[in-house]
Structures are given as C-alpha cells and as structure tokens.
C-alpha cells in the first residue's frame, strides 16, 4: 500500500513538473482576449476603478453568489456540529 502511494506521488510529480516546464514562459500569458475586454470596458460598464472588484461583483456576480452559498453551507455545518455547546 505504501509503495503504491509512493509510486503514485512520483508519477504525479513527474507530470506536474513536465506541465510546468512546457506550459508557457512565466510572465507572458497566451490567451488574454477576455481580460483585455475586462480592462478596456470595466470603467465604462461597471463604474469601478478596480478591475478585480468589477469582475468579482459584476461580470462574475453569479460566481460570487455560489461562493457565498458554499460559505453559508460550511458555516451551517460548523454550527450543526457544535449545536448545544461543546460537551466535556
């Protein structure tokens, strides 16, 4: 079992490192059409000087709603686990 785990980690590490070296040079992203649109139009369309904020709350608002749902579910789980105080 332990040998299988070690072999799995080694194979996984090999593929990760190969991907990192073959992906693209660091500092020059290849596919930037969407981000250039965001930078160009964020001030006009969302009236925000901070492009990241305009993406989080406007362009990807539904994504942020899902994030809030996950947060709510996790906090509900924590409250359920500790309902009625922590018994000794």
């Amino acid at each position, binding site marked *: 079992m*332990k040998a299988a*785990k070690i072999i*799995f*980690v080694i194979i*996984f*590490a090999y593929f*990760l*490192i190969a991907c*990192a*070296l073959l*992906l693209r*040079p*660091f*500092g*020059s*992203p290849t596919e*930037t059409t*969407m*981000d*250039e649109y*965001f*930078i*160009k139009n*964020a*001030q006009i369309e969302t009236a925000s*000087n*901070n*492009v*990241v904020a305009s*993406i*989080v709350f406007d362009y*990807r608002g539904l*994504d*942020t709603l899902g*994030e809030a749902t*996950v*947060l709510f*579910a*996790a*906090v509900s*789980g*924590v409250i359920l*686990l*500790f309902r009625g105080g*922590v*018994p000794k």
Partner: protein
Amino acid sequence: MLENKKALLFALLILQNANFLVAICLVLFGLYALLFKKNLIKMAIGIAIIASGINLFLISAGYRKGGVAPIFTEATIKASEAETRMVLPTPQALTLTNIVISLAVTALMLSLAIRIYQQTGTLDATKLGRLDEL
C-alpha cells in the same frame, strides 16, 4: 562547451518557471501530508497547503512581465497601454474566491476533527475505519 550551454539553458528554464515549480512543491507537500500522515489535523493542514499552492499557480498564470495591478487609480502607466501592461484580473478574482472557500473548508474539517476526537478519543485515521466498533 556544448554541455555547459545545455546546462545553462536548463537552469534558465527552471529559474524562469520558478513560480510554477514552487506551486508544484506546495501541492506535493500537501499531497504527502494527505497520503502519509495519520493524524486528521495534519491531513487538514495538507489540504490547506494544497489550496495555497493552487492560489500561487493561479496568480502566476495571470502575471505579465513588468505588469502593474489592475487598479486604474493606482496605475503608474498611460491609459492607452493599460490593456497590455496590466496583469490579468480574472485569475485574481478566482483566487479571491478560492481563498474564501478554502477557509470555509478548513473550518469544517477542523470542526469535524474536534467532534471525532470527542466521540472516539483518537485522531488516528487508520483506527477510524470501522464505524461499528466505536
């Protein structure tokens, strides 16, 4: 001489992609903690380390050489070259989401570890396999 040049090019490749390699190291450390540690709290720490590695990878994937933050009031460049000089904002927004979600997941995991310790008196994952023996 040729061997020297090859080694130099390889070292340059490693140095250029240092951010990606550090992210991979973080993911592998977290995976090591998940697979080879038996303490539940150490496994939770492993998942948190994997989340930091993913965050670093996302930020690095959106970086532009010599870029500035995508905030127009703080930018030190001309407005006309904003599209090509600002770093990509979408990976940063996704990283923001990932930070919040990893925080929530870590809180839930640690709460479960506390409850498991109260119920069973142990945090050893190998002893928790048989639920009917508790």
